[in-house]
């Protein structure tokens, strides 16, 4: 048996050594890690407009540099508050994002805030011929959070593309929302407003879509995840409604183009 003093000294010495070395390693790798994460997120955003990137461009085949290049030259970004008003850089910083850019907004953090304090990013992708408005949504699947980016055409009604991701859905069932490119493709061409101009979002229908304009097929064995997607789309896109209304009537808003 060792004396208590020895044990205490040993443990303190060991933990400090470990703490110092791990902190050093973290500090050294931090900048690159943050940059990697940002690139990863930008790639996810561009996945929503993967069909409109231009001839022969495939989002999976693009290198990180190409993604950053497209993002900085073709994407404008802005941040909106709950009333659909455009936020300035200072307001984004006040919401807890040091970078002050809309791209810094972390939807996971926003989801935990009270409704009226939440802010949302909006990305405007300019393909040259047309502008696409990419909206970020986040909700709950079966086991954990799911999120996605939805691109609307410039009529603010037709979905031009969608991309989903998840934290821990079941592989082969719920995880198909991300793993199977066919699922996101089903949203292409659906509309979020009905003929009367009412917001209806897009419904993921179990057993097959009945209304091709506002419904898409679900996934067998993944009813809860599919319902989560429906819910997420309804609530998430609903937040962008004030902005959309404003756009339809007033002047088109200018985003910040971040070089």
């Amino acid at each position, binding site marked *: *048996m*060792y004396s208590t003093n020895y044990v205490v000294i040993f443990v303190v010495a060991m933990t400090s050594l470990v703490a110092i070395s791990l902190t050093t390693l973290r500090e050294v*790798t931090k900048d690159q890690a943050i940059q990697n994460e940002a690139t*990863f997120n930008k790639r996810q955003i561009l996945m929503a407009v993967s069909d409109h990137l231009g001839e022969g461009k495939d989002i999976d085949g693009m290198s990180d540099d190409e993604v950053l290049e497209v993002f900085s030259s073709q994407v404008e970004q802005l941040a909106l508050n709950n009333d659909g008003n455009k936020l300035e850089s200072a307001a984004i910083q006040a919401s807890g994002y040091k970078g002050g850019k809309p791209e810094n907004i972390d939807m996971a953090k926003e989801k935990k805030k009270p409704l009226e304090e939440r802010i949302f990013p909006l990305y405007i992708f300019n393909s040259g011929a047309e502008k696409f408005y990419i909206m970020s949504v986040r909700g709950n699947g079966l086991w954990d959070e799911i999120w996605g980016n939805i691109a609307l055409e410039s009529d603010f009604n037709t979905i031009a593309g969608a991309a989903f991701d998840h*934290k821990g859905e079941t592989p082969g069932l719920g995880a198909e929302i991300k793993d199977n490119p*066919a699922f996101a493709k089903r949203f292409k061409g659906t509309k979020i407003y009905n003929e009367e101009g009412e917001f209806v979002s897009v419904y993921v229908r179990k057993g097959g879509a009945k209304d091709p304009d506002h419904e898409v097929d679900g996934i*067998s064995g993944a009813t809860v995840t599919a319902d989560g997607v429906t819910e997420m789309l309804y609530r998430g896109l609903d937040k962008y409604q004030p902005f959309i209304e404003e756009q339809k009537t007033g002047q088109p808003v200018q985003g910040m183009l971040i070089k």
Partner: protein
Amino acid sequence: MAEVITKVEEKEPLFGKKERKLIMDPLTDNNPITVQVLGICSALAVTSLVYPSVVISIAVVFVCAFSSLFTSLIRERIPSQVRMIVQLVIIASLVTIVELVLKWANYPIYKQLSVYIGLIITNCIVMGRLEAYAMANKPWRSFVDGIGNGLGYGAILILVAIFRELFGKGTLFAGSPIELKFIGPTPEYMINTVAEGSWFGWYANNNLMVLPAAAMFIIAIFIWVQRSRNPELVDIS
């Protein structure tokens, strides 16, 4: 199988017969998964794709080898009262290193593995080797033993993943630069069905293989094959 611990004689080669045995044993007759039946939970969780399995295997080899090395280096100074906690701190810090390095070097794969990297800490193989071998042996031997057991674990992981990915998704190494596609997806590809016109169009992807339960069957088959080839491994009790 009991470990044969012999006294180290002087002037032994750096990589002699015993070190060879330390590497080869976990790969064959003393495999941590199929013979000792350790580390099953993580083997079920990460093996649905080959590429993440390879990354996890490398991480486990690293953690296993270096935790054995460090534990062995300080084995005579570790107070016996807090032995396990000390081992745990060593393992946990190495796993944190793996996590930080992955985040730095390859963020997409870090995202894909997410919690499973952290779960290496709870992998019974790592701590089992520290308790059984590194606490009683010299650093170099312990290091080699760690590599051996990490490899033994990784080999099974990758084998299981090859079966699961090939029959469950029709691909190999999906997500890596050398992705091989055998079955779909094509643009017309539907969920839970198969692309028509591909060479393997007659084969419908088996969704069961993607679920964790499939790993259980495959590991069980490995255990069966191994024990019927080598009856010495069968427990008669």
